[in-house]
């Protein structure tokens, strides 16, 4: 077998100059006349983005991290010698041992890569690569079945929507199949509006045909001949790859008229959105495709009954659709063995925050948060203490340590006050202030709301104002009750899922970290030392040598003291800039 050099060209690797690495490899091979001997290929993302640019050597599976273009000549030397370029291997954080292949790295060991199985291994712009890895064979199976059988298979698999709500996909398709209509539509929701998530983006960048195959199956099942991919225009690479996938699929007869001689026709168009959080909500998305402003419609009627241009429409998330070929490859019963009773298959998470290893991880449903954070993610960065994890995006919930052994599935997360959401998972350490965190997420959802309905438009602003007051040291105990009742009212009365979930971070932080709120209000203290207005500094008398450096640097003139005598800070004058803390050579100044 010819050796393959696979260079990741996902967005993250590209931003760490993987194009330069690719170009260097290309010219190096040319200069040495090795173009025939080795095949150089661009691939999609491996998920281990912080270690990019990543270069994979097949068939040996050598997994090179943080490759730079100037290391390319040596890399090619090694290739020719058949040796390993050891410095480029990932080192175990415990033993410092270099690990040769991907599967030896702890980041990958607890993962179950099904949807992401091709990512990093095939050229996303080559339909042949996809076909050679088994692609479009599930479509062939589907087209030989009756649409009702297809729907039954999806129902039996137990797969639920990965776009947030977790609605059973088979049931949704069933509802889409029922109505008689002159036209029906399939919409692939690739808006991915959660700012921390890049799951759908990665799938589209790495394996776009998988998404098309899922859409085709959905179209065949409900009797739709037209599909839309609604994708944010901030994803230029994903847009480019899905365009190229569509044109290749058309050429090869996997799209267009009479697909694989089955008599089934299907076309796909791309609609680029301007990137508003609310446009990920299915009815707002439909309005946007129709050329209106992205404002949700009341449901029911659900899109499956009355969607795009009032026709029956199935809206499915990119990751949901990407699961479909797996179901038909494996068979529903095999697929249903993965996961828990009510949540089948895997889920991809975008792991970020104060964690050692960030990136995209695909795990079986039912895995615990502890496994994700401490085993796959390698625990908290800089040996700090775990404090909380925000799961489900900006309108998800913030869970404390007590939830670490909770299984990650749709229903347990809802019970915990959080949600699966889009798969954003932000890990926070002890240096995070929980009130500030709630304020941060709420300020995002408040800005991104469409402004149509009263509770969300007006209510979230008031929540934010209350949080702001607490952060500024002007909170009252009644404010905490207000936060709670107003949050519950917004959730209870808002028109769409945005308002119905935006207060989640407030409610869950109140529920799990009420003590920290009370400290802000009653003692006017921020235990994490984040809220500027609540900070105060003191000089530990025993440690102070009286050098006077702090006094010289304090812009407010708040520090006094005799030479070689312990100094003092006048809290009324102190501007809370923290300059003295940084400047004291003896670490004698501390918050408190």
């Amino acid at each position, binding site marked *: 077998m010819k050796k393959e050099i696979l260079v990741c060209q996902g967005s993250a690797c590209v931003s760490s100059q993987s194009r330069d690495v690719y170009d260097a490899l290309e010219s190096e091979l040319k200069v040495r006349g090795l173009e025939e001997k080795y095949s150089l290929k661009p691939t999609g993302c491996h998920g281990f983005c912080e270690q990019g640019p990543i270069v994979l050597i097949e068939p040996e599976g050598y997994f090179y991290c943080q490759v730079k273009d100037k290391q390319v000549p040596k890399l090619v030397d090694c290739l020719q010698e058949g040796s390993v370029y050891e410095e480029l291997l990932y080192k175990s954080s415990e033993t410092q041992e270099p690990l040769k292949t991907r599967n030896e790295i702890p980041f990958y060991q607890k993962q179950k890569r099904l949807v992401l199985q091709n990512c990093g291994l095939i050229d996303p712009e080559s339909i042949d690569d996809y076909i050679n890895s088994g692609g479009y064979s599930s479509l062939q199976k589907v087209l030989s079945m009756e649409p009702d059988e297809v729907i039954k298979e999806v129902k039996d698999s137990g797969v639920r929507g990965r776009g947030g709500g977790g609605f059973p996909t088979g049931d949704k398709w069933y509802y889409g199949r029922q109505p008689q209509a002159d036209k029906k539509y399939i919409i692939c929701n690739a808006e991915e509006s959660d700012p921390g998530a890049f799951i759908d983006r990665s799938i589209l960048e790495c394996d776009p045909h998988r998404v098309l195959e899922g859409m085709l199956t959905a179209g065949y099942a409900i009797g739709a001949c037209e599909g839309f991919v609604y994708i944010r225009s901030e994803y230029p690479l994903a847009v480019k790859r899905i365009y190229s996938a569509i044109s290749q699929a058309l050429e090869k007869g996997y799209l267009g008229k009479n697909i694989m001689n089955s008599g089934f026709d299907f076309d796909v168009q791309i609609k680029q959105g301007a990137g508003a959080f609310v446009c990920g909500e299915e009815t707002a998305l439909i309005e946007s495709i129709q050329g209106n402003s992205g404002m949700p*419609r009341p449901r029911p009627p659900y899109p499956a009954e009355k969607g795009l241009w009032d026709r029956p429409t199935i809206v499915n998330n990119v990751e949901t659709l990407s699961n479909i070929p797996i179901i038909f490859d494996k068979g529903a019963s095999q697929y249903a063995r993965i996961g828990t009773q009510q949540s089948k298959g895997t889920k991809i998470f975008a792991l970020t925050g104060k964690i050692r290893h960030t990136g995209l991880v695909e795990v079986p449903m039912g895995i615990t948060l502890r496994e994700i954070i401490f085993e796959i993610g390698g625990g908290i960065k800089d040996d700090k203490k775990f404090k909380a994890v925000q799961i489900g995006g900006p309108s998800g919930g913030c869970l404390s340590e007590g939830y670490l052994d909770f299984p990650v599935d749709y229903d347990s997360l809802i019970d915990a006050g959080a949600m699966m959401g889009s798969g954003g998972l932000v890990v926070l350490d002890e240096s995070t202030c929980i009130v500030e965190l709630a304020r941060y997420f709420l300020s995002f959802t408040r800005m991104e709301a469409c402004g149509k309905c009263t509770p969300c*438009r007006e209510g979230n602003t008031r929540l934010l104002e209350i949080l702001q007051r607490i952060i500024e040291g002007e909170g009252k105990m009644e404010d905490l009750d207000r936060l709670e009742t107003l949050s519950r009212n917004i959730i209870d009365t808002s028109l769409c899922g945005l308002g119905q979930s935006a207060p989640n971070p407030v409610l869950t932080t109140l529920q799990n970290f009420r003590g920290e709120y009370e400290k802000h209000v009653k003692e006017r203290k921020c235990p994490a030392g984040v809220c500027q207005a609540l900070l105060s500094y003191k000089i530990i008398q025993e440690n102070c040598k009286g050098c006077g450096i702090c006094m010289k640097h304090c812009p407010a003139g708040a520090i006094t003291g005799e030479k070689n005598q312990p100094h003092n800070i006048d809290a009324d004058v102190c501007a809370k800039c923290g300059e003295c803390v940084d400047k004291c050579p003896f670490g004698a100044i501390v918050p408190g």
Partner: protein
Amino acid sequence: MVDKVKVNINGNDYFVPENYTILKAAEENGIDIPTLCYEEGLPITGACRMCVVEVRGARKLMAACATQVSDGMEVLTESERVVEARREILRLLIANHDLRCLTCERNGDCRLQDYCYRYKVEDTPYKGEVKDFKIITDNPFFIRDYSKCIKCGKCVSICAEVNGAHVYEFINRGFDTKVTSAFDDPLPETTCTFCGMCINVCPVAALVEKSTLWKGRPWEVKKVTTTCSYCGVGCQLKLKVKDNTIIGVAADKSGSNLGHLCSKGQFGWDYVHSKDRLTHPLIKREGEFVRVTWEEALNYIAGRFKDILSQWGGRALAGLSSAKCTNEENYLFQKFMRVVLQTNNIDHCARL
């Protein structure tokens, strides 16, 4: 025939057509559910959330205006949870509203006031940012005072769906959302036809006719139902009358125009009190118009018709009718011309 379903509202069973919304089912059975953004005949947007009700089995409160009934549905329209939710919505609305009710043109005729009274919302605990806009007086007919706007969106809908002018939209996002013309342009520079339908659906004092400003409190104004005299459509409208003087026009939904009007019916009534208006017949004698009685005038006209007809025949006569007449009047007119005055010379001003 639409099938009927059984719906239980506040403990009583009702049989209503299955395509009804909860709001309609309640309304027809004398149960009042408060609404701010709902308007019969306009698309249902479900924006204000004032109409939320408790539906058994539903996790969240449901908007009565947007939710269809189903067989066996159980609804509570004034439960504690519902009332508290409505009170919260009202507290939020008045927290971002110019609350100078004392001198407000809609004082006493305002849905926001009515509902605050109904649900005993005297004040709001939310003292924070309040949107404050300058009153826009960019056209001769009405003002736009967006510090009073509650963003119900009814002006947007009626302008787009009934007039077809699409003048208004929701601009910006979130708390900064404002309902106004595209780019906040002055109305004379938009597609506005000044039909004024938007002011008639506005539930508060955000859109107010200039002619009524400082002219009287709503309870001092008599509303007189009449027919618009401008064209053959014969739209129904209500004249707002204070001290025997017309100060404005309100919608009247009883006629075939369903309360919709054009700029003439809405704003073109000032001729009524014009000093130049003819109020009795005149005949020109020796170059001067002289006041006569109706009988005298009609006799004179009939005499001249007869003279011309006998002397020159019907072809010497012609009739020109007006677009202000109804179809029936125009029919009678041509019949009269043909049969009595024996002429086919008949035309209509709309052809001029």
